[in-house]
């Protein structure tokens, strides 16, 4: 009987320890993941904005006025050849 009680206590402690450890690990994992996702989403959002900005300017081109100067707006903040992997 003592053996059973001892084993039950040890098991309970071990299970509680396991649960705490796993919940901490899950929490850390979620935080890291959320941060990374946020970074990726920000990068996508910035890129979308740049694409829209370029497209809107190109839409301003008037076949009558030939206003290419106004349509071709360079976005100097875009560093060419930079990879998303650098995030």
């Amino acid at each position, binding site marked *: 009987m003592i053996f*059973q009680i001892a084993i039950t206590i040890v098991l309970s402690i071990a*299970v509680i320890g*396991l649960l705490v450890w796993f919940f901490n690990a899950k929490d850390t994992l*979620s935080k890291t993941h959320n941060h990374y*996702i946020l970074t990726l989403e920000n990068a996508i959002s910035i890129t979308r904005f740049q694409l829209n900005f370029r497209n809107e300017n190109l839409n301003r*081109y008037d*076949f009558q006025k*030939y206003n290419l100067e106004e349509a071709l707006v360079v976005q100097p903040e875009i560093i060419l050849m930079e990879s998303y992997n650098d995030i």
Partner: protein
Amino acid sequence: MKSVLSVFLFLTFGLSTLFSQSAAKKMDSLMQVAETSNDSIKLRHYNRISFYYIFNEPERAKKLLVQGIALSQKKKIPFSEAELVNTYGIYYDVSGKSDSAKYYFERALSISKKNNYEIITVMVINNLGMFHWNKGNYQEALDYFFQALEINKSKLSKSAADTYYSNIGLIYQEMGLPEKALEYHNEALQIRRGIGNKKDVAISLNNIGVSLTLKKNYKEAEKSFLEAIKTAKEVNEFGILYSASNGLAELYILNGTHQKAIHILETSIKERDRLNIDRRSNLSAIANLIIAYSRNGQLNAAKNYIEKGNAFLVEFPELKVSAVDFYSAASQAYFRDKNYKEGNAYFEKTLAAKDSIFSTENAEKTADLETKFKVSENERNLAETRANLAETQLEVKQKNIFIFGAITAAIFLGILGFLVYRQQKLKNSQLQKESQLKTALAKIETQNELQEQRLRISRDLHDNIGSQLTFIISSIDNLKFGLEGAANNVTTKLGKISEFASQTIYELRDTIWAMNKTDISIEDLQVRISNFIEKARAASDVNFHFNVNKDVLIDAHFTSVEGMNIYRIIQEAVNNALKYAEPKNIELSIEKDAFPIEGTGGDIRKYRIKIYDDGKGFNLENSSFGNGIANIKKRANDLGGKVEIISKEGKGTTVELVF
């Protein structure tokens, strides 16, 4: 009893050397050392010395033990107190004072248990087992030995359990249960083999031989005795060797191989005499030898040993029990020789010897013993039942513990597995999401960078080539101005070059735009055409009608090049109408129609764009078309379609583009 005592001594101290001649001297010097040592060591020496004196000078042992116990109590050294009280119990047990022995054993047990001295506890429990065994209380003895075994297995070295297994086996042997005895003797043997103590291995093999003989398994018993003899020889344990030899000889007499028994017994007797090892045991061997010889028909040899036996009895007159066996064997030998006179004489000696043993007092004792035997027989049966029950309970307990442990381990592993699975699942889903986003980002960034790169190249083209073309136009215009009054064909040519350069700039701009713009919707194109029409209407008195059929989906898309070509065709056609036809109305329509596919019977839906003016028209055959119409055709070709111009003088012109 002798084997019991030897086990008892071995377990308690394992010091057989104490019984040698030099032991007395050793004890004296040990006593001197004890007097100069500290209390703890002194008490341990007292214990060893007093144990020696129990068997040699009991009174001195008692005095030393009382002194030691008092000192241990005064100095508060419970370990020594427990040890000395236990030895005091042995003193009383050896003295035959059972009640006192039991009291002191139990007191020693109480002290050692209270202080958790496992070594002393197990020793005292064993002594209590021996105490009950000696009294014939097999049940109590077994209980104590099983307790000692349990403590040894759980708290002390498992390898020390051999003695308890052996003792339990001996009890079962005495109880006439060779099957059970063998079980425990084998356990003891296994442990002893593991330890490598050959002396104890030989003892266990001898015990197994005896049990197997009781079981009438003579073949296996012979093997066991032979191995016991061989092992005892290896370690020069002659006492064990001759015990095993006698056992083997008795076995041979029982199974009728008398010659073998004779050889063994003769050797055993000679060697005991030669080495002077327990020579008293030779009388029993002589009795067996007489039986073997007489049963084998060698009556003269039997008579020789009868004489030797008589000589032995002169030397050791106290061997009354063995004498009964000897006289009986001699009587049988003479009867076989048909010497009835001698046979009767020895028979009478047998009876006389029995009478001397079984005197009135002995008879009473025998009666007591018989009663005790009957009681112990019942106890034995009870003990067997309880031992079986205890074993079953132990097995059930062990099984339960195993099942509980297995379930616990399974639960733990299950929870661990579940948690690992959940975490892995979470990781996978996170990785999947991250991977999707990374792929999307990579795609959109690549697209963005490509577009930006294209835009920057376009910008460079526009800035460099555009400005250079502008410079050319400006230079040509300056040249024209400078050549005022020159030949007409030169200025016309220069004008055409300037116009061509201007056209090139416009086309370059359109191309650059189309290169950067991926597509253009119908809606956007419609808005741009409407704007163009509005400007044209403002610059002329012409009525414009612009219609987009409902079949044309508003959210349909053209590529930017297609969109640009459509726009330029419409622009060129409208400009031509305004420039040459002097129309009142210009109608523009965009629709989508089904066109048959040649040879298939099916059809395909294509765009149809119509520009109609109600101007003066022209004769297609007599007219020479300029760059405008050529451009329209080229652009229609680029769209993968066809353009048709229908015109009659005075009936207006229709330009129809199908693609």
